[in-house]
Each structure stands twice: as C-alpha cells, then as structure tokens.
C-alpha cells in the first residue's frame, strides 16, 4: 500500500517540480537505492560497510560495457539485472568470507570494505583497456526505448519503488526480525540454531544487489562512468545521507538522500559552509539522534500503523512440530579440558546427566559451571575430552549446530532482544525448530504460536502483550520471557543458568513451578546452575557439585549435604 502510494507520488512529481529537478531527482533516486541497502546493513543487521560505492560502481562499469557492446538491443533488459546480481554475489562472497573470521562484523569489517573500495578505485583508474582509466567510459548509449530524461526519471522511480517494496517485505519477514536480533545479540541468535554469519552475509548480499541495480541503471542514465562512482567520497556521502535520514527505518535513507544529497547539489553554491553544516549535522545525528530525520515522523506513522493493524484480526498460526531432533539420551562429558590463556577452567571434567529429570549444578565461584554450559553449546572449545549425547559426538561443534540438535539455553543475565516485541522474541524461539530457510521470507511466520506458549501465557499474562517491546519489561519479566523462549524451543536438553537470579521469593517459587511443569510436559532433561539451595532442594532430582573445574560429588540433595568434602569446599579449608 505504502509502496503504491510512493510510486504514484514519484511518478506525478515531475509535473510539480519542473525539468531541472526531474533530471536531478532521477539521479538521486538511484543513489537512494544504494542508501536503502546501506540502511539495511547498518540499521537492521547492525554492521557498517564503508565501501558501498564499490558495488554501485562495479555494476555501473559492467552495464556500460554491455551497453556499448550491444547498442539498441532489447536483450540488455535481461542483462542489466544480471550485472546487478554480480554485485550481489560479490557482496555475498565477501560477507561469507569475512564474517566467519575473528574480525567478525565490527570495525575491522568496515575497514575491509573501505580498503576493498579503494582497491576497486585503483583498478578502475588504471585498467585503461577495460574501464577507460581515469577518464572513464564515455558515450554510453541509453537504454532502448528510454530516450529522454523524463523516461529515465520514470525508470529510476520504478526501480526505487521496487527496491523499497523488496526491502519492506524483508523487514516484515522473519528474516528482517532475525537481522535486528543479530544486531542486538548475535550470540543469542546462534544459540537458537541460526548461523548469524550466513544471515549477515545475506543482508550484505541484498545491499550489494540494491547498489548494483542502481549502478546498472546509472550507466545508461548518465552516459558516463568514471572511477568516481566507486570512490571513497561517494561512499562517504552515502553514509552521511543514510545516517541523517535515519538508518533504522526503510524510508530514512531515501529521505536522507533526497533531502541532503539533492539539496547539496543546489545549496553548495548558494549557502556558504553548507557542507560544513551538513558534516556537523551528521555528527550531531551520530551522537544524539540515531533515529535521524525520519525519527521526527515515526511517532505519528507508528500510531497510524497501529491504528490500521489493530483493525485487522491477527489470528495465531500453530507452529509445526520440531523437525530434526535427537533421541532422549543421556548427555555425557568425558575428561573434558578447557583452558584460556594458559589457565585450565575445566580440568578433565567427567560427568553424565540423565536423559530425564532436573539436575542441578552447584559449586563455588570459578568452579567451571557456566564454562561447562559454554562447552556443551560449543562456545568454548575443548582441548581434550568429549561431549556426547548418547553416541552422538558434539564436541567443538559450532553453537548454532548444537542448538539445532535440540538444546535450549537460558543465559545467566537475561538476554532477550530488547528492541524486539515480546511476540517477535517468542517467535524467534519457535522458528528455531520449525522454520525451513525459505519460510523465513514469509511474514505470516511472525504470528506463529504454540500450545506451550499458550499455557505459559496463561500463567504469565504479560506474555500476551505481543506488541510491547521487551525493553519495557521489568527484570523479573525478562527472566520469565527468556525462560519462555527457552521452553518454546521444546528442547530435548534444557540448560538454565541461574534462572531465578534477581527474582523475588514469590516470583521464584512460581518460576520453579513452571520449570517443573515444563520438565514433565516436555519429558526432557533440564540442567540448572543454581546457588540458591532452597531452590535446589525444591527442584533437583540430582545434584552435581563442581569444584576447580571438575566434578567433586554427585547425588541427591541429602547425599550432598551429608558429604564432608562438599561442606569443606564451601566453608574453606586449612590445607
């Protein structure tokens, strides 16, 4: 709807602004397409490419070469999308190769993209036989059937709306939710069984494709492609436009490009220090208004959207049952050793957890309790020993692979995705076991629900406030939301790290009931790290005492309490 309105508005606009601006805007629509891609990476998936011009420029050169080779041929309409696809694939490749390395998606990724775009600039300016060197490729014929600037304008407008429609669909789809989740807490996403590197690479690929599409249209529109289109200055301007417009929203980068970009072309000469003012404004935005200009309108547009959406009935859809799973078998850790910077955190730890029922791990600080969880879920590498479920060896598997086998985990500090709604938080947990990769493009998956969530919501009504942001919840509610997310996965083995930390006595006893109920309902194994002995007494079928990275004692609560070695650890010895 919104996209259709945008399209009509853009198509009618030339009648209002006159020829000069029609020509100018046609160009800036192309730039806006690149900016939308940058917003997708930066505002949604949370990583910042500094060389988007590279993807724009590569497709522009490709398109220019193709156009010059086959002037007037309508075949070009098939080839241009392919030129854009080349940029997309290149971005995908870069993403896949870079994100999985140590540098990840932090500042190093940004610097790599910056260096790559500078490299491209060097190639473009020196490879005379192909790129025309410093002067570039001139005299590029226009697209067949597009013969004046007005037609070019309309083509650019349609392309921009196409990009916006595609992006808005992705933002609404589960994929977009996952991107935003990755930006907030990448580790948590991996623990739900999604490989964050792949999803980030995908985001980068889409942004590369958008930039490529714009570049492919740039060549015939302008008739000239010079190294400046892959240059640093263009990348820098894109960044400013996106930030000033508002990176977090679909329309932010477009607004930024049209307002700042096209106005700069005009104001540069009329207003002294215009660019200085814009640079200062950019810094102000970075420091104080991450929302950008579009943030001024979002309170109004959000209210409008809520008004329209609440009118529609949002029926819940039953999530499908778990796809892949492991049999309910015991989890065993065999002589596992984990060390960081020369210190052994786990010292030949050998322990077996029964396939059903609640086991509690207790032990003093530094006993290796949380490290054991990190070992199981693949976040800490074992230098020796093994972790197995039944006969299946899962030692040193990537966290997302372990999670897919049916492990659920609740972290020590509540780590729900604060900027997502309660409903999306829960939905991510459901997708983690029920969604196939292509399903993540279907917005209807955001309405998934399951009987477990229904029953939890009956106990905790706040879980029904699906639209509310998780950041609005109190500490106790967040703990419960995360517990609900861990349960919604329907894990075969559930790892809970201090699930009741920071809860009041009343909240704690309710949470204990829920954990007990879930363990019986799911018939799974629950392993809890807990300090509070009152809670352990209530919930544990079996207690493991850890000390110095190894198992010290194991048994029922009574056994443990009668064990002098355990008591000595807690009181402190004289040896």
């Amino acid at each position, binding site marked *: 709807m919104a996209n259709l309105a945008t399209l009509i508005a853009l198509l009618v606009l030339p009648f209002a602004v006159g020829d000069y601006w029609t020509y100018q805007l046609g160009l800036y629509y192309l730039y806006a397409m690149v900016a939308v891609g940058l917003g997708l990476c930066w505002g949604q998936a949370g990583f910042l490419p500094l060389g988007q011009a590279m993807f724009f420029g590569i497709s522009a050169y490709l398109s220019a070469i193709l156009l010059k080779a086959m002037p007037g041929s309508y075949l070009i309409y098939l080839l241009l999308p392919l030129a854009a696809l080349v940029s997309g694939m290149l971005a995908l490749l870069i993403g896949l190769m870079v994100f999985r390395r140590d540098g990840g998606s932090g500042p190093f990724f940004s610097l790599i993209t910056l260096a790559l775009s500078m490299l491209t600039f060097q190639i473009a300016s020196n490879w005379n036989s192909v790129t025309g060197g410093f002067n570039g490729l001139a005299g590029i014929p226009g697209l067949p059937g597009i013969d004046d600037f007005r037609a070019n304008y309309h083509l650019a407008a349609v392309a921009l709306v196409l990009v916006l429609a595609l992006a808005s669909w992705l933002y609404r789809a589960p994929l977009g939710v996952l991107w935003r989740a990755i930006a907030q807490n990448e580790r948590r996403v991996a623990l739900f069984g999604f490989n964050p590197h792949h999803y980030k690479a995908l985001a980068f690929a889409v942004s590369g494709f958008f930039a490529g599409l714009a570049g492919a249209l740039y060549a015939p529109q302008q008739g000239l492609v010079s190294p400046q289109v892959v240059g640093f200055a263009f990348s820098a301007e894109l960044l400013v436009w996106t930030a000033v417009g508002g990176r977090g929203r679909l329309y932010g980068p477009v607004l930024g490009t049209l307002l700042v970009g096209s106005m700069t072309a005009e104001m540069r000469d009329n207003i002294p220090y215009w660019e200085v003012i814009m640079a200062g404004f950019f810094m102000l935005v970075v420091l104080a208004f991450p929302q950008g200009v579009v943030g001024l309108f979002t309170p109004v547009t959000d209210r409008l959207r809520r008004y329209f959406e609440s009118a529609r009935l949002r029926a819940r859809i039953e999530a499908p049952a778990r796809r892949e799973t492991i049999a309910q078998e015991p989890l065993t850790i065999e002589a596992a050793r984990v060390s960081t910077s020369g210190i052994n955190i786990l010292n030949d730890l050998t322990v077996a957890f029964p396939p059903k029922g609640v086991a509690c791990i207790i032990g*003093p600080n530094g006993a290796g309790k949380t490290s054991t969880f990190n070992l199981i879920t693949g976040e800490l590498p074992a230098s020796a020993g093994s972790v197995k479920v039944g006969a299946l060896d899962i030692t040193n598997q990537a966290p997302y692979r372990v999670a897919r086998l049916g492990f659920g985990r609740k972290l020590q500090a509540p780590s729900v995705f604060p900027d997502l709604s309660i409903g999306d938080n829960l939905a991510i947990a459901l997708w983690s076991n029920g969604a196939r990769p292509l399903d993540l493009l279907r917005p209807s998956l955001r309405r998934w629900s399951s009987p477990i969530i229904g029953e939890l919501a009956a106990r905790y009504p706040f879980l029904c406030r699906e639209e509310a942001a998780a950041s609005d919840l109190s500490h106790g509610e967040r703990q419960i939301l995360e517990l609900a997310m861990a349960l919604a996965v329907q894990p075969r083995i559930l790892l809970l790290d201090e699930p009741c930390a920071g809860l009041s006595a009343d909240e704690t006893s309710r949470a204990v009931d829920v954990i007990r109920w879930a363990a019986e309902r799911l018939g799974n194994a629950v392993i809890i790290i807990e*300090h509070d002995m009152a809670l352990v007494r209530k919930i544990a079928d079996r207690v493991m005492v850890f000390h110095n990275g190894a198992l010290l004692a194991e048994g029922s609560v009574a056994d443990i309490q009668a064990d002098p070695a355990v008591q000595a650890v807690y*009181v*402190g010895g004289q040896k």
Partner: protein
Amino acid sequence: MIPISFNTVSGGYGSLNVVQDLSGEVEAGKVLCVVGRNGVGKSTLLKLLLGYLPCRSGEVTIGGRKAGSMAPEARRGLGISYCPQERPVFDDLSVSDNLALMVKDGRLDGYRRFFDLFPVLEKRLAQRAGTLSGGEKKLLSFTRGLAEHQPAVVLDEPTEGVQWENIQRMAEMINGRKAGGTAFIVVEQNLSFAELIADHYLVMDHGRCVLIGSCAEIGRADIVKHLTV
C-alpha cells in the same frame, strides 16, 4: 571518626538490585568480615563502597566524609585501599613495577617486612605479574594494598588460591595492623581465615543482611548454616 560506614545502601547492575538495604560500619583497629555464599552480592557491596557502582539508595561515608557520587580514584583520597577479587594486579607490569607504582621514589625498601613474610614475592620481582599463579597474585595485591598505609583497607577474597601457611601469615599481618588502628572490611569465603581476624561479621544472603554482630555473639555454627549447602 569511623573509617568506613554504610547506611541502607542498595545497588547493582542494570535494572537489578544485587544489594538491598545493607548497613554496617567498621571502627579503627577492627575487622568486619562479610561472608555468604557466592552470588549473594558481597563483591557488589564492595563495589558500591568504592564507587565502581552507583548506590541507588543509601549513603557511604569514608573517613567521616560522605562519598556521594565520588569516583573510585577520588575515594582513595578519603583514606581507603582496595584489593579487588578479580584482576588484582597489573598483569602487564613486572612484580617490582607493580610494587614500585605507589612508592614516590620507586624504591622497594618499604616492602622488606612483606618480602620476609612472603619470600616468593621477592623471588619473582623481575617476572611479569601476569605469569604468577592466582594465589601469588593475591599475595602481591595484598602486599600492595597494605603497604599503602591507609586508615581503611578493603579486601575482596584475599585468600583465594593462597596456601594455608601464607593465609596464616596474612592473618598475622592484618592483626598487626589492627593493633596500629587500621580498619578492615574483608569479604571472605574461607571461614577459618575469617575466624583468625574477624571482630564483626556481616552474613549476607540474596543481597540482604541475614546476620550481623560481633564474633562474641555469632558462633561458627551460625555462619556455617548460611555458608554451606
């Protein structure tokens, strides 16, 4: 003048209050031992006292002056030394640099007594502190903290990983300082060590005080009840 006192302090991380309405004080020449199982908020209490975390309510007074929202580096000027539980020494510096840091002329003469007590430190002077064992780091930190000669010393689990003979020597040292009027707040898991030095106990559970009093009033059995599982 009371070296350190705290009145109904609460605070913690993010939205969570780890410490709730704790009050206590330590007089000159006395030792207050804060005990409790791990995760009950003992280290958090110390961070509130030292200014690493803001107090959400309550008031900390050091050397008779209200600390308010003073930064840790400023609180030291009120007369308090602190030996943290985690990362207790400068790992990148040598042992001797760790000690020389707080001495004006950089000479280690003032540490003679400590070297006699813990010869292992003197042997390791040239070594990078990061290569010390956990217990040796604690000894180094303890030595540094006590050598500052401040009216109040705050120790967070000073005996973690330290051998029993050295624990006894630490206790001797503390008791010697008590006689000289130094006040101590010691967070401790090792009850045997606590018994050697404590004048008062503050037993914590779930961020609250469950037991407070002098060692005459509180026996080992009372504390063990709250410590063990």
